[in-house]
């Protein structure tokens, strides 16, 4: 198939449709409304469901219902809208329902602004809702990768019976890049025999997250914890860039900032400062081991984010105190430039401001 030039938001929508994500419920919010708008056209063509719901609170609960009835269901929103879903996401995780949630992050906190940001890292990765649960979090850095990760997101959601968050930023959503839709193959999934589809020929199914007996509730908690351990074992994804050498500095960055870092690395190479990048593709599970390993080859690490410092904590957790871990961040819609990253690296190299 020839490549076509597509806006990130639309490409995500198309990829989801092709992956069988045929039920979409959403509520408009910049910078991702094109997803809904695209699907308003597209879903009727493929016999899917597009429905605008009254609020993000409701959207997430509609997902719960539809997922519980066995559908491949998804939504998309941006930061404040995602915050409104927190209760329901916690329910979805607790009831072990599969769904995909795309967060095209904008600046916060509060109403903030509509420019790109990575300020929702903690919310996505540590679980912004109540209780012990985790979402699998995928962070594409290009339109093509967003397209490629959507089928994976649906597959893993079904496989783990767990919400999967695809986290982008306004840049990924708004940017056009050439994309190709290739069909991905996954091992067969178990039947959704737990879904509430009418109890003909079987015992009634119940979708539930209430366990008044602490023994039962603890069982659920430990079961979920075990599932997240499974994810940590099997789902870690990352990209290494110019790391096959001794490094002055290992950059860690995801999404848009990772691309910025690549340019910075090229420039640093020009200046004879060997630098590498570890780009987490899964934010949860976090590529701890890979970072730890690479960290041993670098004099220090620098986490580059569009935030005031979130992922850096996970980098520090990965590295311990074995190597210094620094942070460079811009916020509020400001995107770090490659020059800034170059400068930051040089500053720390010189024993800079820390």
């Amino acid at each position, binding site marked *: 198939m020839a490549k076509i*030039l597509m806006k990130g938001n639309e490409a995500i929508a198309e990829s989801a449709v092709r992956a069988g994500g045929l039920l979409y419920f959403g509520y408009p919010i910049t910078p991702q409304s094109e997803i809904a708008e695209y699907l308003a056209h597209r879903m009727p063509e493929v016999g899917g469901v597009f429905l605008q719901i009254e609020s993000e609170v409701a959207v997430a609960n509609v997902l719960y219902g539809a997922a519980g009835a066995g559908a491949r269901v998804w939504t998309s929103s941006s930061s404040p809208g995602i915050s409104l879903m927190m209760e329901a996401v916690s329910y979805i995780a607790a009831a072990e329902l599969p769904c995909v949630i795309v967060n095209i992050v904008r600046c916060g906190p509060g109403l903030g602004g509509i*420019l790109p940001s990575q300020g929702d890292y903690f919310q996505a990765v540590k679980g912004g809702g109540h209780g012990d649960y985790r979402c699998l979090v995928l962070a594409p850095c290009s339109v093509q990768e967003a397209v490629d990760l959507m089928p994976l997101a649906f597959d893993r959601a079904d496989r783990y019976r767990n919400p999967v968050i695809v986290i982008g930023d306004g*840049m990924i959503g708004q940017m056009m890049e050439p994309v190709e839709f290739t069909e991905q193959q996954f091992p067969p999934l178990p039947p959704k025999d737990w879904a509430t589809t009418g109890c003909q020929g079987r015992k009634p199914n119940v979708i539930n997250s209430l366990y008044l007996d602490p023994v039962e509730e603890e069982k659920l908690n430990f079961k979920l914890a075990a599932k997240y351990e499974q994810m940590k074992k099997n789902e870690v994804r990352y990209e290494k860039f110019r790391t096959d050498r001794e490094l002055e500095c290992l950059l860690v960055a995801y999404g848009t900032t990772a*691309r910025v870092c*690549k340019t910075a690395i090229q420039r640093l190479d020009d200046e004879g400062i060997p630098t590498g990048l570890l780009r987490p593709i899964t934010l949860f599970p976090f590529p701890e081991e890979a970072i730890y390993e690479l960290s041993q080859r670098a004099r220090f690490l620098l986490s580059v984010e569009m935030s005031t410092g979130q992922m850096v904590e996970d980098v520090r957790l990965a590295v311990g105190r074995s190597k210094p871990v620094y942070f460079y961040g811009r916020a509020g819609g400001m995107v770090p430039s490659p020059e800034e990253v170059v400068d930051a690296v040089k500053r720390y190299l010189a024993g800079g401001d820390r």
Partner: protein
Amino acid sequence: MQIETVFAGFGGQGVMLAGRVLAEVGMKLGKEVVWLPSYGPEMRGGTANCVVIIADEPIASPIIAHPRDTVVMNRPSLEKFCPAQKPGGYAIVNSSLINIRPDRDDIRVVEVPANEVAIEAGSGKAANMVMLGAYVGVTGIVPVEAVIEQIKEEFQAKAKLIPLNITCVERGYDIGRAAAGYCV
């Protein structure tokens, strides 16, 4: 090689489309491309702009602090973007609406009376295509034929607009070619 071009103007002047056409052409020529709109607060009423990147290698950062080239269709755009251009880049300036020049001697400036040319060709709305044509003419970044092919595809649904837009690209291209000599 990587060339970054900012297309900027009033909302409604069609800078987003002009940029997109260039990006499509780049892609079809097998290049790496990115088209990145600004979708900030300036969206409503104010200025609009997009960046097109065309490169031989995969494009790392889509955020361009210093684009090589600019195609500016109104004065605020010139004031905002030309100062940030890389030395040696090109600035295509819509002289129909801009009566100043970028205050730099290290970039190559081409003035194009895009609105006049477009009005003459049939509609002032196609001034963006004049600018695009001129840009292609000056820089040779892509073959003008490819641009014309893309225009045909782009306006498929509104076929009667195709001739006008092609004419505008061609006239802009000619202006660009002519200028290429002196501006280099």
